[in-house]
């Protein structure tokens, strides 16, 4: 500083300016980075603000969660019983999980453990394309292609699906069950007799499945847009998420684990079920939760495919009845409530989306918690 003619030292003012711009630039970048945070805060704030007028009346809240009479547009005598809507959401979500989770995990296992690298590389774009297809296109498919199919040939579709799921399932169950029975109960010494026991279990099991499927053949579906339709299509939508994330999880299981298991004489099936999947279970849990989130938050498919009926199905597990979900209700009714901002209907729909938002946030927190658990476990 003292040597004024030394050009190596920068001008004091330039230095300050540089530091200032650096600071400013950094602050700008930081504020941009904070936009998602701000957005989250704003979303929560505004949804809550619009929902509060409804939630402030406790009688409304009680009816909202337990009532079955949904008539928000009736100004003289409005009813806000949203139980059928919540139930529809749960039903469709559970239904799609039953389809998508086993299928997704199996596909992920197959892609990373069974088929060769080459085939797996070919299939990666298939999964990605399935993920990229817009939800409204799936909704279109459900409404225009799948619903008429269900309505006109419902029995055959159910029959085929029951056979396709039931026979492999009975095979997979009867094999270990037969072995267990022959060792633990019959106490057979001779190993060559085991297959006969398995067959003895498999044949009646299989015929049971066939009988059940044949009973389904006579089922008449009154409306093609129902909970089953929505569940199947939602399952297809959730598949890519589940497959790709659980595949990552499975891939990250160390090679040494697999090799150790195989070296001890386990078959590939045993290795996968007893070593690989338990190791990857938290990753798979994250995959399932993210798939679930996609299903719960999905609007267009359920709006178009679920039938939008305000009744709880009779009996409660009847997936062939039309249902209605929260997202579909919001999308369908807000258009009419929109003009009269401030009406009871407007606020109750915001209350519903508040529930949806809270559900989404909880699921998201769960997934992040599981993921961070996994990271911690890895570090140890």
């Amino acid at each position, binding site marked *: 500083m003292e040597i004024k003619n030394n050009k190596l030292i920068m001008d004091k003012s330039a230095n300050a300016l540089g530091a200032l711009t650096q600071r400013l630039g950094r602050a700008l970048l930081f504020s941009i980075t904070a936009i*998602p945070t701000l957005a*989250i805060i704003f979303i929560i704030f505004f949804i809550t603000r*619009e929902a509060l007028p409804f939630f402030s009346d406790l009688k409304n809240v009680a009816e909202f969660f337990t009532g079955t009479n949904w008539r928000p547009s009736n100004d003289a005598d409005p009813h806000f019983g949203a139980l059928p809507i919540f139930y529809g959401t749960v039903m469709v979500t559970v239904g799609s999980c039953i389809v998508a989770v086993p299928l997704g995990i199996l596909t992920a296992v197959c892609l990373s453990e069974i088929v060769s690298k080459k085939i797996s590389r070919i299939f990666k774009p*298939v999964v*990605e394309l399935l993920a*990229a*297809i817009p939800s*409204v296109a799936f909704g*279109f498919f459900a409404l*225009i292609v799948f619903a008429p199919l269900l309505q006109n040939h419902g029995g055959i579709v159910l029959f085929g699906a029951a056979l396709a799921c039931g026979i492999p399932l009975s095979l997979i169950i009867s094999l270990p069950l037969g072995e267990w029975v022959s060792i633990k109960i019959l106490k057979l010494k001779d190993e060559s007799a085991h297959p006969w026991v398995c067959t003895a279990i498999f044949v009646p099991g299989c015929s049971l499945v066939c009988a059940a499927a044949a009973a389904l053949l006579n089922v008449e579906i009154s409306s093609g847009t129902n909970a089953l339709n929505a569940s199947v299509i939602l399952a297809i939508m959730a598949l890519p998420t589940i497959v790709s994330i659980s595949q990552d999880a499975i891939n990250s299981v160390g090679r040494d684990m697999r090799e150790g298991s195989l070296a001890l004489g386990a078959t590939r099936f045993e290795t996968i079920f007893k070593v690989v999947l338990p190791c990857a279970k938290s990753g798979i849990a994250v995959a399932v939760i993210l798939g679930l989130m996609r299903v719960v938050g999905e609007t267009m498919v359920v709006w178009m495919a679920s039938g939008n009926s305000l009744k709880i199905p009779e009996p409660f597990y009847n997936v062939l009845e039309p249902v209605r979900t929260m997202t579909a209700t919001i999308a369908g009714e807000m258009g009419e409530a929109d003009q009269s901002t401030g009406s009871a209907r407007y606020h109750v729909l915001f209350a519903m989306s508040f529930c949806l938002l809270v559900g989404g946030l909880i699921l998201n927190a769960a997934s992040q918690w599981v993921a961070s658990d996994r990271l911690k476990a890895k570090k140890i």
Partner: protein
Amino acid sequence: MRNILDRSFTIMARACLCLMALTLLGFLLPIIYNGLGAVFFNATVEHEKFLRENLDYDIPQKKIELIERADAARAPLWKMISSYENSHGAAESGKLLAQIRKDVFASMRADKETLEKILGLGGRERAEKLRKYAESAWKIYDLEASRLAKSEISPFALDKAFKSEQTSLESDAKKFASDCDKTMKLGFSKRNSLRRNICLPPLGLMKKLRAEISLQNAAYFELKNGIRELLGPSDKTEKSKLNLLRQRYGQTRMDMAKKTLEESILHINIKTKNSRGAEISRRVASKQYFKNSAVEDMIDYIENNFDSMLKPHFTAYWGFFFDEPFDSNIFGGIWPMICGTFYLTFGSMLIAAPLGIAAAIYFSEYAKEGRVISLLRMCVGTLAGVPSIVFGLFGLAFLINTLKVSESKSVLAGAITLALLILPTIIRACEEALKAVPQSYREAALGLGAGKWKAICTVILPAALPSMLTGIIISMGRAAGETAPIIFTAATSIGSALAISDIFTQPTPALPWNIYNICSEHEMADRVGHVQYGMVLTLIGLVLALNFAAIWMRARLQNKVK
């Protein structure tokens, strides 16, 4: 034993894989097949007529000749219809009835005394006597009318004759009553009673006869509507009276024309009375119903000359992508929707990409791990998990109702909402891309004397750009296909393509929303099947093209790295 289990498991897992591929195929194939049908199809001459008259297409001479030949083939049909509707016997018999009517009135005028006597009576008795008098006076007329109803004159023409008789009976009765009023000084109530009762018997008969033939006529009208639906109106004067485009043109597509022939011409709904006398609707084969009448010849003619009246020819209608829609998408193309999707996608990209890249730079280059940063990161993840419909409501409550970025829905509000939706995806993709840049690049840049900012701009960003673009393109695909966020913020079901200057204030039609709309809320959903498929194919094509571009870029990048 364990091997069998192993095998069967392997087979099942492979089956799952195949199932997934089959699902994709089973999903895409019908959409591609039917969607291409919106552009390439077997068109009828009505298609060319529509294009020439509404969209100013230059139709080649060959096709104009085709139209003329088709019109020539239709001429006999129109002739059959008009001769059926105006059959000569009906006009003559109408004249005959009119003559009898005049005679009856003349004789009643001549017979003043009886009338005066009856009118002299009081109240109810007067009305009764008047009715009896009228009954005897109109006997000949009634007989003639009943005979005509059973004759071979077409019910359509007969109905016309009876209708005109009805009106003239009413007006004549009025005139007769006022004439009597003048000569006899009847007063208001007597004149009224005369007017009401003097023509009661023939009017009642006309009503009864018309009700009988109206069932037959309704069936004929049903058939005629079917013919209209198939071929359009018969001539220009009729055409100019019709408002809706769907009434002004026949079926433009051969597949729809065949469906119309089968469903509205060969089979029709007729109304009959059931045993209890209530009207019920029944579906019958029209040839059977109109057996041995002139109508059967019409149906035969249509069936035999179907092709020559419509002149099917294969066509590629590229205008499907570039034309405005007409008459709620029954005619024309989908240009406004494509345009709207384009605006929304690029708008959201212009907002989200710079923000996303900046945030990613901060995360990967500046941020030191700490509580604040992990909170920020967590919020990115949370934002990605918010359901898309909630984004839509947020856009409505915040952007439109609170900030008032526009009066009501607008492209701008929709683009901002979509930008928020895809921001997390972009941030993550860009961060991954920046992290993939080798540390040595940074060190080299800093070592050469570049400042941090300069290193980022000149070295790190260019190195990461291709894989950043991949992520951005994929999220563009997502923005193009999202529906729920734009329902309340940007989308409208009808409208024309917006100019750039309107995007800040006007809502726009957009592919995803219009797909929903045309599938679920269209009044004639069965007439726009090809448009539905065409729109979905366009949207999927757009999104998949973006994704393929991204996949291709990534593959090239991987090769480069190798």
